[in-house]
């Protein structure tokens, strides 16, 4: 009886790993969207082109800190941040529509705009 339950738990684990693994693989496909949206606290503070021939910097200042976002010919990335973990900087350029750049301490999110309508509809 006990063994049966353990086997069930094992099956759940394997299924979870498989589904999330495949889903991850599919969602990592790079997307090229020509517009980006920057939000803080769910509110849109910047909307614009995803690439700029002349490097353009957007500085986002909140009560919690500051992020400098760079938009250049390759795409958009966070150039510097004064948060402790800097994971937004380490994420590099925004590649996937499914993996927005986030700075959790500053509640900042950078994602592709346009066709990823679900995100827009909610944030507007």
């Amino acid at each position, binding site marked *: 009886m*006990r063994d049966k*339950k*353990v086997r069930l*738990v*094992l099956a*759940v*684990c394997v299924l*979870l*790993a498989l*589904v*999330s*693994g495949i*889903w*991850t693989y599919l*969602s*990592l496909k790079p997307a090229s969207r020509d517009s980006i949206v920057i*939000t803080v*606290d*769910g509110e849109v503070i910047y909307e614009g082109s995803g690439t700029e021939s002349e490097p353009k910097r957007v500085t986002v200042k909140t009560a*919690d800190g500051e992020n400098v976002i760079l938009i250049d010919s390759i795409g958009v990335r966070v150039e510097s941040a004064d948060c*402790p*973990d800097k*994971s*937004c900087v*380490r*994420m*590099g350029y925004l590649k996937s529509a*499914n*993996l*927005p750049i*986030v700075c*959790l*301490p500053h*509640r*900042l*999110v950078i*994602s592709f705009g346009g066709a*990823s309508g*679900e*995100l827009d509809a*909610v*944030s507007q």
Partner: protein
Amino acid sequence: MSAKKLTQLALLTAAALIIHTLEALLPALAPVPGIKLGLANIVTLFALYWIGPWEAALVTLARVLLGGMFGGSVSGLIYSLAGSALSLSVMLPLKKIVPPGYMFLPGILGAAAHNLGQILAAVAVTRTPGLFMYLPVLVFSGCLAGLFTGLAAGALYLRLKRKTDK
């Protein structure tokens, strides 16, 4: 609470804090926030099987709160708390059906639940439902990390059991 138990829990909390702090010094595994090994979960799993569910919850709560203070990022605390709460609520009941030899199973499910809790907290804090897109990545990394910490905790448990039974 007996003095022996209090000492035991204090030692476990100290061990968990050391692991937690050392892990924070390691470079990030992947450039996605929230992905980590979660090595301190070894202590939670061990405490769960060696002592009991409430004690494991206590040790984990103490570690998360103190770890947040030592780590210096109080804003990160809410994610750890949400993750730990969900993780504990999955792992504690699993102890009843999963024998110690299969400790990696609650390890996997607990880690996945931890990441789900983190995402829920992050969505609530940033008010960006789009962050749910991170869920598969985080759950997958949680499965791997949980397998690892679960196997480690299981090996520790069985080894200690053999020693104390002699």
